[in-house]
């Protein structure tokens, strides 16, 4: 059986090499897997799975794929997606403890729920249509309610506040989306080995979802074949970031918990995914300042590092790389097998404390005010201790400034008054353009579109705190627009704070082979942090009594109409008697007509000479009246039919 599988796999590999040769190109589909483990200062462990799948452009290679998921390539071809990122997140990234100034956090700290953004390669007029179709396709692909992003009230068009600058960009997020295994399984299906083999086999559902934070991300980018570069075609990057709490034996001691891959995930790595080009495990140790101070130029000493006074690794790393304040241990899992599974363990010997590098400003967001009528949203930016160390701040005109972009989406039922925007820097209110360099708002339209605010703040470097507050009115919704649990409240999506002058990257001194995860870490990425999701309670009408409201209101209208008409129509005394005597002489319509004429002329009613009127004439009057009524009813019915079918 095993032999059969082996031959099948080898055939598959052979085929995957053969077909590109047949097409006469050197480019092949590539898949690589990697796992990055990183102990965090607060006794937790971060595990970052990284899978990259590259496909050559379809126009030169046809539509047949070996490793690359067909669903994704069809998606790209159909909707002409240039770049897209979809993330499912549960939990909140702890910026103080887990870091905010490294590529891992700036790329993988995502807002709660689902976040989707995409850049399209279509004419402007078709971007919205493509977006809607894409949301539906993704919704089906990932078993999530991404299709809610289809409605124009839930997505926005960022111009410059969000990362990529493109006018064909659409951004939307669903803060309330619950993320679970049903989203992970289709995500794993896109991998060539699924979760059967290789690193992805570690994704034991109970241990993954037990974590404090997990974010599953899918990043897709297409590079035009005409462009020169390393990558061409479609690059699919799938990452899963989990923060886990290792079980500790010694409770109450300061020693960091000891863990191994098996204790974290309940599984071990048994061999690599044979389809993967590279398959590595990295261990990043941060803030080991004690070791850095030692002079470790020699190769030998560096290799001694994995067993030192502070900690000990259970396996010998294949390579060790050094960065300014972190070490990267690289393990190759090619050698592991069924008999000898790969199980990396870390044992701490001494209590070690370190802190992660943080973003220049720590952002948090909160609501102000009480009651269900109005309130205010405040974003507070607090200086972190790493601020003065940062060299990225911009020195213009001799004064040091720190730029921060704020990007925020408001649902339409949060009716924001942009003129109430107040900015406080170190508790001093700043007006006008002192700190606010650029602002772009697109106000929300009721039930039509969501509001968006992008602004660029330029704060002095020594700033201790900056606060932005903006007032809003709460909208009142139709009963059908409330979700089933209306009294829970509504979520405002996270705001995104990014620092355009700061880029996070791990700057390793040694050059390493082109491992995709490694190149991702080296790549400069924008430092950004998402704020909390806010829960806004909205007033609810009484859901139980639409009928009562309709009947009572209609009664009031009937009261108005009836009583007013009655007052106008009522006649008393002599007038009535006079009219009665008139009424005896003439027929109904004639009498009414004469009364109307008399009213208009303002003269008393003339004595009509209707006594001589023949009964035939009267009957003709009646029949014409009947006929007229009939025509009127028929006309009304026809008009109603016309207007109702028109829609």
């Amino acid at each position, binding site marked *: 059986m095993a032999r059969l599988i082996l031959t099948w796999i080898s055939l598959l590999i052979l085929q995957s090499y053969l077909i590109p040769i047949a097409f006469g190109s050197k480019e092949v589909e590539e898949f690589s897997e990697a796992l990055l483990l990183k102990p965090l200062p607060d006794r937790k462990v971060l595990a970052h799975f990284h899978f990259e799948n590259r496909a050559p452009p379809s126009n030169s290679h046809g539509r047949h794929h070996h490793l690359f998921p067909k669903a994704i390539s069809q998606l790209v071809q159909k909707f002409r997606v240039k770049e897209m990122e979809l993330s499912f997140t549960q939990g909140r990234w702890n910026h103080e403890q887990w870091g905010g100034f490294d590529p891992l956090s700036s790329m993988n700290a995502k807002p709660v729920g689902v976040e989707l953004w995409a850049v399209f390669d279509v004419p402007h007029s078709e971007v919205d249509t493509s977006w809607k179709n894409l949301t539906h396709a993704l919704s089906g692909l990932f078993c999530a309610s991404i299709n809610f992003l289809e409605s124009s009230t839930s997505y926005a068009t960022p111009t410059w506040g969000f990362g990529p600058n493109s006018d064909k960009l659409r951004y939307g997020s669903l803060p309330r989306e619950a993320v679970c295994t049903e989203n992970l399984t289709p995500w794993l299906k896109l991998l060539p080995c699924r979760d059967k083999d290789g690193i992805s086999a570690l994704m034991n559902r109970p241990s993954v979802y037990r974590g404090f934070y997990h974010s599953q991300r899918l990043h897709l980018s297409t590079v035009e074949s005409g462009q020169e570069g390393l990558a061409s075609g479609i690059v699919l990057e799938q990452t899963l970031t989990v923060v886990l709490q290792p079980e500790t034996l010694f409770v109450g001691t300061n020693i960091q918990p000891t863990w191994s891959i098996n204790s974290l995930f309940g599984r071990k790595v048994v061999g690599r995914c044979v389809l993967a080009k590279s398959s590595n495990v990295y261990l990043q140790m941060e803030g080991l300042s004690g070791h850095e101070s030692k002079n470790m130029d020699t190769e030998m000493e560096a290799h001694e590092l994995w067993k030192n006074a502070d900690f000990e690794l259970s396996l010998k790393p294949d390579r060790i790389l050094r960065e300014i304040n972190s070490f990267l241990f690289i393990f190759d899992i090619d050698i592991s097998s069924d008999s000898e599974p790969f199980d990396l363990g870390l044992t701490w010997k001494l209590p070690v404390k370190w802190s992660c590098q943080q973003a220049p400003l720590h952002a948090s967001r909160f609501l102000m005010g009480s009651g269900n009528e109005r309130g205010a949203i405040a974003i507070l930016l607090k200086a972190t201790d790493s601020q003065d160390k940062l060299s990225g701040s911009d020195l213009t005109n001799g004064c040091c400034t720190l730029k921060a972009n704020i990007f925020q989406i408001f649902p339409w039922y949060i009716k924001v008054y942009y003129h109430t925007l107040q900015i406080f820097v170190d508790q001093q209110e700043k007006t006008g353009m002192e700190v606010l360099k650029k602002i772009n708002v697109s106000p929300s339209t*009721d039930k039509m579109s969501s509001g968006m605010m992008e602004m660029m703040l330029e704060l002095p470097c020594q700033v201790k705190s900056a606060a932005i507050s903006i007032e809003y009115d709460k909208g009142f919704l139709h009963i*059908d627009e409330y979700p089933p649990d209306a009294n829970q409240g509504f979520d405002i999506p996270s705001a995104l704070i990014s620092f355009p002058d700061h880029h996070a990257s791990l700057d390793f001194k040694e050059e390493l082979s082109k491992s995709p995860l490694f190149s991702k870490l080296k790549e400069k990425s924008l430092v950004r942090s998402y704020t909390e999701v806010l829960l806004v309670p909205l*007033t609810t009408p009484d859901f139980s009594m639409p009928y009562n409201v309709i009947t009572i209101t209609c009664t009031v209208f009937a009261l108005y*109409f009836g009583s007013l008409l009655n007052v106008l129509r009522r006649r008393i005394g*002599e007038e009535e008697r006079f009219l009665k005597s008139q009424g005896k002489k003439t027929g109904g319509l004639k009498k009414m007509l004469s009364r109307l004429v008399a009213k208009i002329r303002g003269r008393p009613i003339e004595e009509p000479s209707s006594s001589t009127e023949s009964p035939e004439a009267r009957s003709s009057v009646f029949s014409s009246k009947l006929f007229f009524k009939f025509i009127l009813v028929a006309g009304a019915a026809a008009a109603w039919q016309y207007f109702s079918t028109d829609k």
Partner: protein
Amino acid sequence: MKDDGEMAEEQKKKPCRFWIWALSSVFFRLILISFPGNLNLSSRPEVSTPLTSIRRLAEGYWLKQASMSPYAGSMYHGSPLLLSLLGPLTVQRINGQPSLLLCSLVFVIADILSAMLLRGIGQKLQMAYGLNARLLGLLKSSRDKGILRCGDISALVYLWNPFTIVSCVGLSTSPIENLAVILALYGAVTRRVPLAAFGLVMATHLSLYPATLTIPMIFLLGYGLDAPPIKLFLQTKSVENEDRSTSSVSKKAKFKQTTRVPFLWKTVVHFVFWVLLWSLYVLVLCGLSLSKYGGLEEMFKRTYGFILSIEDLSPNIGVFWYFFAEVFDFFRNFFLIVFHVNILFMLLPLAIRLKHRPCFLAFIYLTISSILKSYPSVGDSALYLSLWALFVNELVDMKFSFFLFCGYLGISLLSPVMHNLWIWRGTGNANFYFGNAIGYACFQIVFVVESVSAMLNHDRALKRCNSTNREVKN
């Protein structure tokens, strides 16, 4: 009974007393606007609606300053002219703090102007009332002893009405809308055709509903001021012709009869011409101020469209918000049509029945539209209550006036309580506030029905007097 000396003294005193009361109301307003923070009236749903809220106007101005259309988003729904007038005042800062003091002063001035114009209308109506009463032989002496000074009363009712004060201090734009309406009526009463046309066009431009005033204004310009039914004059005339009386009053009456009865087509055409001219002017101004953005089409969509389609479901003292928050979506259009047509349905019967009293007709139209408005506020009630005071002479026999007074008082006290319970404390629910709104609508309906009924009864009483007079003479 007072003797003549006392009467004369009172005549002198009265204007003096009027000015004292008017000035004190202005001072009262000034005192109230000097501490706006403590009152927080501008956020009351009874005072400011989405159409009249100054906060939304400030937002519109901010958007315009940020070179966006003021109608971007669904914040501002008012006129672009009001935006250019009041917008710069909303960004004024006094001692570094944003202050709306200048805006408040504009509203106070608008209130004073409205009161003065109301006084002018009242004086005209009072003269007409006296003249007609004399023509019908109901008042023998030329001195109007029994006639109340309805102009002063109306102006004071307007100035001292808590609803007016609240909407003036609460910074809603309804004082300006009311001013436009009163200006239109004043123009028509004093037969200043361009002024009347301007008022009508501005009022319609600001809040759409005063468009119904076209009918009473045409009557007012065509037939003249409020008078008892023409039938009575004809009867009196015939009686007098029979009597061949040569008193000066009857001569005047004859003269009047011959000049009054025909409809003054020329004035009306003149009026229509001016209305068209002013509308063109207003449209051109709006078009110029919005030329960089969506233009007039967007303006109509965002102002009149917003009024007619009732998009904003935030609570107010009307009944529509809750109805349309609860009604099933497929009935929405039907009920929108039904409710708006309800205003139009009553125009014709009222116009036929009250043709001889155009001012009263205007008052009834305004009352009806303030009941059935999409976004009513107490500012609208303030307007019709003060117009009601113009007809104190005719409406002395109005029924249920004490009941209505208590009703208005009760509603205005209960409404904030219910709103607080529902919105702020969360102990009540929407039905509490809606029940209050239903009650208010009912009281207003009783008010309008009773006013019409009292006016018709007054006409009947005149007729009865007239016929008894005739019988006595015969």
